[in-house]
């Protein structure tokens, strides 16, 4: 209408949800953001060390890939991080905020360690390892099951519940490490069964980490198949996306929550087993070293896709190793890598906004 000539002040632009974005555009945005983040990290490093930024980048790369030993270390770190990320993924896909992986892995590791200590000289090695596998899986699963039951039955907030479970696990480990400390009272258990190597996972082809890496690879592919091709995986997606739809087609939401958390916890238990029996051969409250939390970022950044998770876990493991090398080379504190990682992940988190939303400018429409 022509008579509508009031001066209408509408905002110049507004934010709207994108209905879709071409996949390559999304990845282009992510890539660009990672590059910007790397530049900022370089700048921060430069400010702190006054070294040539290019020099810093090359140290990062050599820190991760410099020697064969470093590459294996990187692979091992990548494998452990990936394993935990994979473990929590089904829960997250179901929108169950399991931030208790730290604890679930730790009790899994604790179960392994206790078996090694208690049965190390009583059982034959294959039998011992079998017992360890079973107990760690059970321990992890139970640790995850407790919050799951309360969530399914009474809708108890799982974020806070699983968070608290972490610290109970840590104190439990502290308790046992004092109980079985070597030497007595030191608060450390030291390398368990150093001479007999009872309960140590076998070494494949002279590469001490190879078995771990292979197991994690199998777990990753298994999870990919489970989520994508199994009926359970399908139910997880439906429950996560819309509980109403789950009800509509007759999926029992409670059952899916409990079953999925059992699987998630069991895999965390396996990660604990690999850390204790396959890598460290000891246990302490720092065995998991925050991987349970880092894994959440890894899984989330990969959009809960196990195959992409190899990539995001690699990014994180690589940055961690590389930045660690920077700190040793330039005499900085080891925590330098946490800062760099923080900056880069902040950028990636922020970039999702530009993938999901679009800025629309208003155009005056003439009626």
């Amino acid at each position, binding site marked *: *209408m022509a*008579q*509508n000539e*009031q001066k*209408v*002040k*509408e905002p110049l632009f507004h934010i709207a949800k994108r*209905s*879709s974005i071409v996949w390559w555009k999304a990845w282009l945005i992510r890539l660009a953001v990672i590059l910007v983040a790397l530049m900022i990290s370089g700048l921060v490093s430069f400010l702190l060390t006054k070294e040539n930024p290019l020099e810093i980048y090359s140290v990062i790369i050599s820190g991760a890939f410099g020697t064969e030993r470093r590459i294996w270390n990187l692979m091992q770190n990548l494998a452990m991080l990936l394993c935990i990320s994979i473990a929590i993924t089904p829960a997250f896909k179901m929108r169950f905020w399991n931030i208790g992986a730290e604890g679930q892995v730790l009790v899994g590791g604790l179960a392994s360690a206790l078996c090694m200590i208690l049965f190390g000289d009583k059982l034959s090695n294959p039998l011992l390892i079998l017992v360890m596998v079973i107990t760690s899986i059970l321990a992890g699963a139970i640790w995850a099951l407790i919050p799951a039951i309360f969530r399914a039955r009474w809708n108890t907030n799982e974020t806070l519940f699983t968070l608290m479970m972490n610290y109970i696990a840590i104190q439990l480990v502290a308790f046992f490490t004092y109980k079985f400390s070597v030497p007595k009272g030191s608060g450390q258990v030291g390398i368990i069964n150093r001479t007999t190597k009872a309960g140590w996972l076998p070494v494949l082809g002279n590469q001490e980490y190879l078995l771990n890496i292979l197991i994690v690879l199998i777990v990753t592919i298994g999870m990919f198949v489970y989520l994508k*091709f*199994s*009926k*359970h*995986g*399908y139910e997880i*997606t*439906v429950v996560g*996306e*819309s509980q*109403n*739809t789950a*009800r*509509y*087609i*007759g999926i029992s939401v409670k059952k899916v929550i409990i079953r999925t958390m059992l699987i998630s916890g069991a895999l965390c238990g396996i990660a604990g087993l690999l850390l204790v029996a396959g890598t460290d051969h000891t246990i302490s409250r720092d065995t998991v070293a925050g991987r349970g939390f880092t894994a959440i970022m890894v899984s989330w950044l990969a959009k809960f896709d196990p195959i992409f998770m190899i990539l995001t876990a690699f990014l994180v493991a690589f940055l961690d190793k590389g930045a660690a090398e920077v700190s040793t080379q330039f005499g900085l504190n080891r925590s330098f890598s946490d800062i760099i990682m923080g900056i880069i992940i902040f950028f990636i988190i922020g970039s999702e906004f530009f993938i999901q939303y679009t800025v629309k400018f208003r155009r005056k429409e003439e*009626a």
Partner: protein
Amino acid sequence: MDNAHKGGVPALQLQNISKRFGEVLANDHVSMSVDHGEIMSILGENGSGKTTLMNMIAGIYFPDSGKIFADGNEVVIRSPKDAFKYRIGMIHQHFKLVDVFTATENIILGLEDNGKYNVKQCEERVKEIAGQYGFEIDPSRKIYEMSVSEKQTVEIIKVLYRGADILILDEPTAVLTPQEIEKLFAVLRRMRDDGKAIIIITHKLNEVMSLSDRVTVLCKGKYVGTVKTSETDEAKLTEMMVGKKISLDIERTEPKNVVPRLNVKDLSLCSHEGTEILKGISFTANAGEILGIAGIAGSGQRELLESIAGLLKAEGRIDFMSPGSKKTESLIGKTPRQIRNLGVKFSFVPEDRIGMGLVGNMDIVDNVMLRSYNNGSSLFLNRKEPRSMTDRLISELEIATPSPKTLVRRLSGGNVQKVLVGREIAADPTVLMVAYPVRGLDINSSFAIYHLLNQQKKNGVAVIFVGEDLDVLLALSDRIMVISSGKVTGIVDARTSTKEQIGLLMTGNAHEKEDSSHGAK
């Protein structure tokens, strides 16, 4: 009313208001006015644009064109705050209240009064307002402890507290019991006598007649007319409201091999708050027939279908007469999975397409297999059959999609619905329930859906069709069951009934004559 006209200037006047949402013209040059000391009803069917029009006065939407005058001065209302500036307040159908706050806290929320914040003082003011108009309210009670009617009282006081002189109520009686409605009306009359202008959106004719001074009728976004309540009656209003009969070119075959398939008896359901949603509903759905269900939105249609599908736990009887054997299965109290395990093939197209019927973030194939994914004993999914079924649906129903792997939420409304209806029909049902299957669809998609329903009928399926457009219901159904406030007010023959008849039934006038083959005229 004696004090109706303050110097002859209406409290609020709308001139040629239009508003378009995408393809839909929600308001097409609507004009109306309301005076101080007057209750004005806005009457119209669902989708006639009543709420849209009122939202433009309340500052929720902004009109595409047209003018608004408050007390004779032209005003621009861009936000609820602007509306309050002109003393306009709206009580929405869905309450905007914070559950853990007290009534008073909700009432004063967002007010930026200068001076000290003093809850006691505010409570006094609330009590004062309540006393003035005869509300019953405890200002320090928490919202979550309140009944629906008390919550509504809070909303009304909230508006009055802000000094509103023009009150708009969007279907205020939809959620109330008859006693509560009487109380509300008493309060509204007192406010009118106090000189306030009151606009009430409704589609219940008896309420219009008993409460309002004048009625403005809208039909499909267009202004039909304004009449004085004293100079009209329910039949005339119904005629204005439903408009002229439009003949739709929907084919309707004579039902063949009609046998009872689903027998519902005395079905009742209570909500969490304890209000009765379904009150003893009884009907029979026959194979080879389309049973239309008409009623004002929110009369219990959704709950009825969900109860039959096993999603809600209702009381009463639901018996299924198996087509092959003569066996009768009782379905009451069973879950969807138990019903399916009995071999009963229900298909259900719910009102919420994405969010209940479909998962927006899954592709078409995965959505197509929602019903069937669990078939067989394998741990793994079989996507082969769903994939070929998807291809078939895409070509048969002409679903416009880049690929079968496209996420459902990226499809347009019509295509989403085709996926949903297509999947439900492909399950080869014996009973097909559809709720508002053409809502938001264009003409072509709508006709495609009607055609599908007709085919199911020919195949001997018992089709239950919940609709809102009376023309469509009359043209498509064989029988029409009308429900009002959770009760069946009549089951009529669709071939011989008129829109007016159904409109009257919808507004709660149960018609006693069971012989429905003779029209009321």
